[in-house]
């Protein structure tokens, strides 16, 4: 089917468009070059013409870090059946159901589509839970998805590093793990720290040795960033730093980033890792220092993990942190699970209050980071859903980034000491529409290596979001006029009109020397399971996703190409 989209103003940073009126053409859901009107081909008449001339049009938005699939979510849902009775306390935020900070798979896709998101990625897919994560995400309608496999705490890896495994062996192991789990990227959570916790450690700093294997987090970071660089995996190592939430952790955050030795590295939910310990309450903001570091190091990218006031639940593989947080659980219940000598899973309900100094300052720190990191290609808007809050708060956050007056209004509502401790008031910056488009579309696609998403050039999926241009830019993101997925309309003025299946995105890095023999022996003896029971074959992934699998190439690419 040939479609013609008459667009009022296109914001497509990858294609270098900043508000131009243009027609877009798509055939069978893929954008094609506009026909030359002087040629016979230009006399083509579209099978469908969609008039978006009164709209601002962007590619579908992409969320690079949101917990949307995996056993931890079922644990959280089971733990909190009463959440359906909760009321939302966030103004301007959209909730498909009141207070539902943990929607089911179906509602997740619907809510994201209503916000104009067309791709979202699960950042914490445990290797042993990858199959379950893929099965669950296959039931999320409309949006594309994928998973980042969690590494860096497997006892197999730590032991091999202790025994002197070389970079080549580690790269093969990383490649094998990614292939066997159908992953798009690799995430490390509190490198070495989760496993250290299982041996009784309560903390593990960047240059501190693991109590059993003697490896430091710095060595783990170096090993994994080297491996990913060698393999040509598009996305950098996605790092949940150690010492999450601990006052004074900003320093270890920067030391963690330096462990990449100039190789690309992505620090996730960096708001939780940007704390000082100054002042009478021994808790302060160091967002400026972290932002300055990011600004000076072009190999570093960050996503924020913005806090949203209200009830939520924290889900994390970082059981070292979650175990200590359990005493502050609200309501007072939680789950901490040690998983297959690979990782962990901690679920702790939590309520962020604007009247609480620490929570209020956390909220301000997230915004400071968003506003102080200068390059919109290297900073990403996330709430680390649901850890900081539900993703449905994105329009509210975007409005604060674009409208300083509104931001100041919101700032005045929080704890007064937090206002005084924060630097937010002094920040004048307001994001432009182009910068929002970069941060929420172009940059996520670029950093994940998604060549067919995040832009509206030829070859891209026809994922378009149209916003009414009679609304203030800061408000329009709450109410997309319509959303198209691969040329098919899915949202029509807040109404869902179609629910096609999304695609899963993965990579398939090359393996030089297959590690199965050693792994088979390890899995059978240590874990008591056959290696083949854990591997997801390419055919199996195709079956789970009903054929909707996109494999992206692994090659050395420019992480930022000039538009």
């Amino acid at each position: 089917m040939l479609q013609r989209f008459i667009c009022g103003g296109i914001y497509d940073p990858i294609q270098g468009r900043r508000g131009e009126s243009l027609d877009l053409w798509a055939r069978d859901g893929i954008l094609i070059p506009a026909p030359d009107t002087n040629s016979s081909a230009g006399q083509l008449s579209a099978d469908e013409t969609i008039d978006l001339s009164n709209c601002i049009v962007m590619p579908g938005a992409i969320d690079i870090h949101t917990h949307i699939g995996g056993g931890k979510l079922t644990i959280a849902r089971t733990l909190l059946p009463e959440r359906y009775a909760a009321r939302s306390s966030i103004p301007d935020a959209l909730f498909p159901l009141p207070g539902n900070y943990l929607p089911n798979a179906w509602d997740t896709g619907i809510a994201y589509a209503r916000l104009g998101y067309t791709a979202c990625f699960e950042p914490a897919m445990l290797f042993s839970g990858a199959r379950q994560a893929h099965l669950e995400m296959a039931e999320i309608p409309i949006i594309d998805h994928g998973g980042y496999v969690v590494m860096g705490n497997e006892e197999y890896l730590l032991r091999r590093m202790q025994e002197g495994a070389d970079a080549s062996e580690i790269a093969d192991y990383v490649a094998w793990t990614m292939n066997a789990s159908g992953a798009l990227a690799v995430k490390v959570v509190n490198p070495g720290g989760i496993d250290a916790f299982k041996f009784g450690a309560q903390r593990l700093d960047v240059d501190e040795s693991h109590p059993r294997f003697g490896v430091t987090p710095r060595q783990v970071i170096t090993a994994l960033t080297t491996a990913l660089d060698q393999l040509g995996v598009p996305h950098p190592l996605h790092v949940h730093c150690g010492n999450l939430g601990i006052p004074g952790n900003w320093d270890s955050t920067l030391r963690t980033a330096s462990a990449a030795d100039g190789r690309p590295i992505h620090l996730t939910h960096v708001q939780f890792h940007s704390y000082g310990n100054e002042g009478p309450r021994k808790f302060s903001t160091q967002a400026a220092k972290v932002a300055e570091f990011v600004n000076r190091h072009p190999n570093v990218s960050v996503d924020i993990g913005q806090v949203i006031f209200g009830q939520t639940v924290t889900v994390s593989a970082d059981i070292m942190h979650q175990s200590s947080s359990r005493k502050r659980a609200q309501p007072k219940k939680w789950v901490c699970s040690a998983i297959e000598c690979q990782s962990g899973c901690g679920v702790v309900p939590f309520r962020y209050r604007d009247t609480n100094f620490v929570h209020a300052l956390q909220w301000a720190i997230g915004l400071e980071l968003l506003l102080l990191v200068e390059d919109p290609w290297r900073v990403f808007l996330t709430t680390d859903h649901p850890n900081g809050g539900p993703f449905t708060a994105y329009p509210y956050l975007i409005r604060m980034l674009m409208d300083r007056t509104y931001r100041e209004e919101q700032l005045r509502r929080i704890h007064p000491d937090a206002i005084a401790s924060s630097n937010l008031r002094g920040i004048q910056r307001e994001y432009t529409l182009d910068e929002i488009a970069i941060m929420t579309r172009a940059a996520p696609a670029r950093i994940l290596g998604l060549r067919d998403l995040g832009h509206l050039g030829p070859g891209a999926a026809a994922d378009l979001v149209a916003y009414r241009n009679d609304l203030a830019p800061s408000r329009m993101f709450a109410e997309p006029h319509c959303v198209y997925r691969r040329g098919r309309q899915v949202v029509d003025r807040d109404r869902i009109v179609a629910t096609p299946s999304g695609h899963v995105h993965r990579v398939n890095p090359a393996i030089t020397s297959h590690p199965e023999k050693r792994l088979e022996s390890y899995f059978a003896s240590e874990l008591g399971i056959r290696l083949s029971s854990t591997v997801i074959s390419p055919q199996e992934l195709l079956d789970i996703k009903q054929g909707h699998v996109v494999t992206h190439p692994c090659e050395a690419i420019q992480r930022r190409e000039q538009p």
Partner: protein
Amino acid sequence: MTPDWICPGCGLLCDDITPSDAPPTDAGPLDAATPACPRAIAWRDSVTFPQPSRGSPLPAIDLEARLRACADLAATFRAPCIWLADCDVATTRKGLDLAATLHATVMLDQSPESIAIDRIVQRAGHFTGTFGEVRSRADRLILVGQGLDAVAPRLRTRLQPPNESDSQCVSSATAIARRWVRLGDESSSTDSISIPCSATDLPEAFDRYHARLTGTRFHPRVPDSIDLIVDQLANACHDARSFAWVWHDAGLGPRAPEVVRSLLRVVDQQNDRTRAVSIRVFARPGLSTAAQVCGWRCGFNPPLAYTDQRARPLERWRVDDCDGVIAIGSLGSPRYLPTGLPVVHFVPAAQAHSFENALPLEVPALDVAGYVQRSDQAMMHRLVPLQPIQEPIVSNWLDRFTRIVAARS
């Protein structure tokens, strides 16, 4: 015979049972598969040998007529209940689709006591872990209550240290020997330490032990027998660094929810200075599998009720409210529901003769592939079929039934 076969006989999902290569015998196509485990054999027999007895001729079933009769029966249900037992992911999905079509309640094959334990676990904090963690790390495995050996006969094999001649756990923090502790009124020759204890004494015994761990006084008076149990438990645990408390619902006796509540407090306290996990073993993989699918699909776990919005749990639903049952994956009559209710069964083909209103259902690990969850929720296993489907009978009766009832509703 496939070497990648995984046994669905219990919640352990053993993948190291290799079916025999011996040729089939007249007793049945799977007689050659002789996994050396009573649960595996029981599963095999239940899905392959027709009841009521082997060998006797069975009447032919007109399945098309059965389908119409079952649909007619289901049409009379005003408050239907979909009862899921032994379901894999695909079957659970189909059951939920059917429930949405009929606005039915969904219930898992779970006893009221087990549901009560769920409520306790939902209200308390708890540390847990997976089998691989226990196998590799625990230096004290405490088997609590009774019946674990029957529920999961190969539990010790799955949780055994890597090298049987070396009882030191590879991943243990200290170089101490692993010990198996039995806390209940059963014992085994392979137990290192056996602490006789009636299930009814467990809540007070755990509370007393918790007090000892925290160094606080325990005020309620308890019999000396409880103190004796606690002394033995403390002696058994004093030098360990990594504990695994293993139990199953039915083995904890009539005070099971109280036992679980008290045990979880002990495990929580142990994690202040050591590491401890509570491992709940399920008798079959279907329960945790269906609960997982319900969790991600509905946002909550059964028992639940469907509304048009798909996501409104009805926690006050009572079993007495339903007037008809569609039992999927059952190998017998639905349990924990009022007797005398009309039932439409979806059962393994070999059992279709057993019930008047029964239609065949595909059996993962027998004639189709499927996904099930291990008891410790570590992973979703992909079951492969033991043999190809012998005849084109089983593949779509549930689908067809769903379409018919959808058209009528």
